[in-house]
């Protein structure tokens, strides 16, 4: 078993065609081709548009990653690919390509869980993950709290959103405020010039909700509350303080996410919190999580923003971890699973 396996990782679960190369915990290449601009006018990711873009970008992006890493396919110890969860048609492009590369080069293939890969990517920046760890994964498609007992195979879901994902709420509120898609970065920027003055609701945080949904999230009510607040202003003929709405909305999201993540650490007696996913690139969630973790003596690990959003390096990182742990590779017939549960780290 190699301690520093060289792995090529392919990610196509949403709108980023990501190909990364990792040796052990060392990042050698992280190439991403995004179709986000093609989705902007639709206000969200259009699956077929994303799938077409993955097809076109696949071979060039793999070549760029190999060139950047200064390796050839023959050098790698394994190929890892996101098998789920994600958009079915988009996943299939990456998985079919990965199988062809594995078959052609005679390499083992690992079909891995996208969410587990968001956790694994942190090892590229902060080294091996202390286990157990609590992981908060927040993106346009996911909002989950996990307990990671063993990144190579034992991950327990603690909670998840019961409606919209956190990133989805950012997108919808951005649209409401006339800000571009994806909504995360423009809201983050607007919030810097705003005040946290509007008391938007904290979903599933009331005592009665905590009984059954202590570690779950809800952002649908928040989105509606923001819409009602903005419309009331508009109907009264008053200007909408976009920066204040952005800051107050962002605070409501980040408050609930970090509160519940820290609560999970305290409840489970776990001393490490990892945050990943596109929303982890938000400056306020990073600051608030740091503040709250410091207060409770919890070590916070958040990868740099480029590694938080979807990429191939995270898939390669998880693949390298699996190879080093001696996990069995998948078959060439491995399926995609758009609803792959987090309890399955590798298919």
């Amino acid at each position, binding site marked *: 078993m190699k301690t520093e396996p060289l792995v090529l990782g392919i990610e196509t679960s949403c709108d980023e065609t990501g190909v990364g190369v990792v040796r052990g915990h060392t990042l050698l290449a992280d190439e991403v081709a995004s179709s986000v601009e093609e989705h902007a*006018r*639709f*206000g969200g990711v*259009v699956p*077929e*548009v994303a*799938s*077409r873009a*993955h*097809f076109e970008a*696949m*071979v060039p992006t*793999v*070549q760029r990653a190999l060139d950047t890493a200064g390796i050839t*396919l023959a050098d790698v110890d394994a190929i890892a690919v996101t098998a789920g969860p994600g958009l*079915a*048609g988009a996943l*299939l*492009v990456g*998985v*079919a*390509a*990965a*199988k*062809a*590369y*594995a*078959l*052609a*080069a*005679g390499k083992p293939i690992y079909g891995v869980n996208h969410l587990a890969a968001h956790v694994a990517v942190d090892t590229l920046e902060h080294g091996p993950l202390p286990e157990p760890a609590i992981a908060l994964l927040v993106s346009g498609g996911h909002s989950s709290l996990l307990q990671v007992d063993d990144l190579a195979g034992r991950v327990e879901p603690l909670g998840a959103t019961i409606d919209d994902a956190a990133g989805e709420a950012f997108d919808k509120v951005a*649209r*409401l405020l006339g800000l571009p898609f994806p909504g995360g970065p423009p809201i983050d920027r607007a919030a810097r010039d705003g005040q946290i003055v509007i008391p938007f609701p904290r979903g599933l945080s009331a005592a009665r909700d905590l009984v059954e949904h202590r570690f779950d999230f809800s952002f649908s009510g928040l989105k*509606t509350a923001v*819409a*009602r607040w903005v*419309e*009331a202003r508009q*109907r009264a003929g008053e200007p909408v303080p976009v920066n204040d709405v952005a800051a107050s909305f962002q605070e409501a999201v980040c408050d609930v996410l970090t509160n519940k993540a820290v609560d999970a650490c305290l409840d489970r007696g776990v001393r490490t919190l990892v945050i990943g996913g596109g929303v982890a690139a938000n400056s306020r969630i990073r600051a608030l999580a740091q503040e709250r973790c410091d207060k409770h003596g919890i070590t916070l690990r958040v990868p740099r923003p480029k590694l938080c959003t979807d990429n191939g390096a995270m898939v390669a990182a998880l693949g390298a971890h699996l190879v080093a742990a001696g996990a069995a590779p998948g*078959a*060439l*017939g*491995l*399926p*995609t699973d758009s609803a792959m549960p987090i309890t399955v780290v590798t298919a």
Partner: protein
Amino acid sequence: MVVDSSTPAVTAALVRVEDPELPGAGDPQVTVLAERVTVDGRAHGELLAPQIQAVLAEGGAAPGDLAAVVAGTGPGPFTGLRAGMVTAAALGHALDIPVYGVCSLDGIGHGQPGRLLVATDARRKEVYWAVYSGGVRVDGPAVDKPAAVSVEVDAAAGDGADRYAEVFGLPLLPPRYPSARALAALAADRVRAKAPGETLTPRYLRRPDAVAPGERKPALP
């Protein structure tokens, strides 16, 4: 290696393309050494790579022995079509061998006598279709409702022609799905000439289903 996933027939075949200049070259000059076809419209991604592996094994070949990849470029339902085409593209890339695209409907119409309508199932009560005269495509490919396909032909072939046989009212000929041998024959000149490979372009024929959002519904009553 021939790959086609434009129809429910997930197809992989190991084919020998002989050089007619060489002494002892056989006739026909395209020989199918091993072939796997599985009819399952929902499992292209699972079936194809194992089938490629199986035909290589049966033909006693290693991936490195391949000289070219021939891919059916559709038209066909998007998701399945892409599975085969990205497989072909990645195989060619990994092995540093050329990839040649062939219209999948030609894999049905190639070499057929007379005037022939080739139609495959495009779902949504439509067909992908093309017309052949003496085995050569003279119209299409296009996608339409069967009743809107108005062509002068003697017969029809393909799973779409079968499915909508009552609409077309034409004698039905085989094959039902693209033939790997025909696809290889159509690319044989390029294979023999060691022509530069191509960047494959799927024949989608339809735009993605996507509509720009309308006015947001108000949250207040």
